[in-house]
């Protein structure tokens, strides 16, 4: 049996709140022991003296577009897996907007089989809330869940029709399933592609009012009041959206939410002169919205940070702004961009790691995201302070669409382990910027 002993690590377990120096022993695909001096227990194990590097549960990325099946020229389960490994992500959850979409048990099974073959990061999937993501007829939620779907969503589209959404929520509640929503009222979003305001006005780009987000969230929350369904708002990006979730939590509704790094690392000015790499859905917003997202992360309103990994090839982005695709890749920048919140003093390291590991795992009810005896040995070893520059050319992802090229960051993944297997390792120093 494979035995691996990490010596003198800074152990970070968000579930127990542990943040101290000590050893961690892996046996097979499980964590055998955590903390203290384990040299005796781990006598004949392969020993790595990591001398103060952070050892945390592997990141749980709850929002990834894999592009397989259907658009393997942009990303595949293998390339996304390599990108995840390099980013310290040990579990990722795929959106159902593939071709064919994940609205049928056979596609869930296909993904599970491909994940087993590729054997990199663990892959779970959401299934479509409605057939063909068309917003009309319910999918076989019970069967899909029984076959492994961890939640239900129409992906990058909101379920527009309130009656359909009510039935999605009510039916999901029957089986205690999680429903996730892309929070944007589509009839308002139809008006444009960037957020309304001075930047859009100057560039002459059609714009969406920022209240498109909170209108959808508040509609859904009223429905959740009726149905009691576990409801998750994906990539919250506006001050009003954060506030709506804050109030709903205070009210005791079963609601959670996440955001993605661009929404706390950038604002709408990143669009600059029509930079299509900064074209996102929901769109980048004002500096006030960005600060509200940071505050939401700080006070716990926002439970999780997900990469919102959206790979696109050059042909989809090297276009006039209005024709370009929405979204950016994020698996390999999730940790360093999130660490900016720690380095800027907004979040303690353990609180930050919680939003990347145990919180999303709890929302998804997955048995990962913790350092505890008998937990799966999904680990990330990283240097929290090492300065380096993001270089999109170095991405393992098949697509390089990110607005962060050249951005100086601090933090570097050194080793990623899934079920006791090392899937990524980098001993070298980060090249000087």
């Amino acid at each position, binding site marked *: 049996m494979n035995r691996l002993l990490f010596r003198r690590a800074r152990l970070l377990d968000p579930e127990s709140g542990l943040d101290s120096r000590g050893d961690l022993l892996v046996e097979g695909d499980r964590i055998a022991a955590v903390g203290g001096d384990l040299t005796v227990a781990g006598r004949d194990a392969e020993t790595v003296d990591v001398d103060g590097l952070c050892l945390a549960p592997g990141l749980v990325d709850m929002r990834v577009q894999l592009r397989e099946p259907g658009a393997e020229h942009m990303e595949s389960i293998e390339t996304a897996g390599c990108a995840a490994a390099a980013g310290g992500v040990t579990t990722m959850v795929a959106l159902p907007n593939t071709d064919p979409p994940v609205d049928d048990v056979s596609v869930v099974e296909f993904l599970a089989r491909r994940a087993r073959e590729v054997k990199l990061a663990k892959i779970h999937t959401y299934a479509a809330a409605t057939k063909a993501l068309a917003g009309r007829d319910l999918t076989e939620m019970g069967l899909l869940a029984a076959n492994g779907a961890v939640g239900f969503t129409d992906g990058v589209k909101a379920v527009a029709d309130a009656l359909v959404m009510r039935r999605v929520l009510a039916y999901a509640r029957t089986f205690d399933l999680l429903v996730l929503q892309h929070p944007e009222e589509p009839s308002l979003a139809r008006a444009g592609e960037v957020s*309304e*305001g*001075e930047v*859009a*006005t*100057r*560039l*002459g*780009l*059609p*714009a969406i*009012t920022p209240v498109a987000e909170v209108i959808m969230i508040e509609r859904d929350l009223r429905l959740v009041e009726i149905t009691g369904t576990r409801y998750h708002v994906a990539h919250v990006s506006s001050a009003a959206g954060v506030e709506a979730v804050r109030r709903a939590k205070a009210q005791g509704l079963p609601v959670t939410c996440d955001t993605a790094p661009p929404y706390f690392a950038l604002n709408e000015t990143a669009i600059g*002169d*029509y930079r299509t790499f900064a074209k996102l859905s929901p769109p980048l917003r004002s500096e006030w919205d960005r600060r509200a997202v940071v505050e939401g992360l700080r006070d716990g309103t926002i439970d999780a940070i997900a990469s919102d990994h959206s790979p696109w090839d050059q*042909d989809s982005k*090297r*276009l*006039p*702004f*209005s*024709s*370009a695709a929405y979204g950016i890749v994020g698996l390999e920048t999730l940790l360093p961009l999130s660490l900016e919140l720690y380095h800027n003093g907004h979040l303690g390291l353990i609180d930050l790691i919680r939003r990347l590991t145990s919180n999303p795992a709890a929302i998804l009810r997955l048995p990962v995201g913790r350092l505890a005896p008998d937990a799966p040995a999904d680990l990330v070893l990283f240097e929290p302070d090492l300065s380096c520059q993001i270089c999109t050319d170095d991405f393992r992802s098949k697509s390089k669409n990110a607005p962060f090229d050249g951005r100086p960051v601090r933090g570097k993944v050194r080793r990623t382990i899934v079920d006791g297997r090392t899937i990524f390792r980098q001993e070298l120093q980060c090249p000087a910027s």
Partner: protein
Amino acid sequence: MQGVARNSPFPHRHLLGIEGLSPEDIRHVLDLADGYVDLNRQAEKKRALLRGRTIINCFFENSTRTRTSFEVAGKRLGGDVINMSVAASSMHKGETLIDTAMTLNAMHPDVLIVRHPESGAVQLLSEKLDCAVINAGDGSHEHPTQALLDALAIRRRKGRLGGLTVAICGDVLHSRVARSNIALLNTMGARVRVVAPRTLLPAEIERLGVEVFHEMAEGLADVDIVMMLRLQSERMHGAFVPSTREYFHFFGLDYDKLRAAKPDALIMHPGPMNRGVEIGSEVADDIDRSLIRQQVEMGVAVRMACLEILTRDLGNGPPVP
């Protein structure tokens, strides 16, 4: 290679927008264009400044007036002007835009004049080309030669731009003419107002340095210039305004509304006009008040000036491999 003047009065490779131009840049174009107005009124209108130069008019959106104006301007300066209309239908997939740029580039044009329905598309093209590019209108972003010709028409009648009050009225939301004019008039020290129903104004337009009005009588009070914008037909019937009748009643320009403006206030319109929608015929055709025909005349002169400015430092060196 011919030397390039270090203190070039117009230090820009392309003309992509008014934003970024200094008052000196603008004055330089207008001064030069002033001379071309006189030339254009002579029987012998031809110059040889652009002899041997190739100018491609590349229009991804229908246009007769602007395209013709550029064509006349290029030909009067002795250049070879080629018109290329790329049908909107075949360009629906924008990915061919960069391919188009590469194709055109291989023909070694000296100036490319581009109109495109998407904001920012002309700039994107300019980044892939090694010739000068003139933006002839990109989406709702900019239409710099229109603002320059408007400025020339105003300056010739009023003798100045600074200190004037200009009201821009109508569909500001979708108008590249409005954005370019707001930038130019502010740069030259005029006061700019916009007057429109709230559905036709973009958010935070006041941040561009304009006063906002929603009522014509207030917005036109004591202005020197009334600039009307075209309301496109697909926006007239319920999408942004309920009907042409209602729009004309509240926002269309007629003598009644014009009474609020200064007695010598002038009327402008970038054309083509929707008579009875945004402007009444009697006002549009008032030879004392309307500058609309002069605008068209100034258009050719301004475009000649722009072509001259962008080509004069190009030199005639060995071909680039």
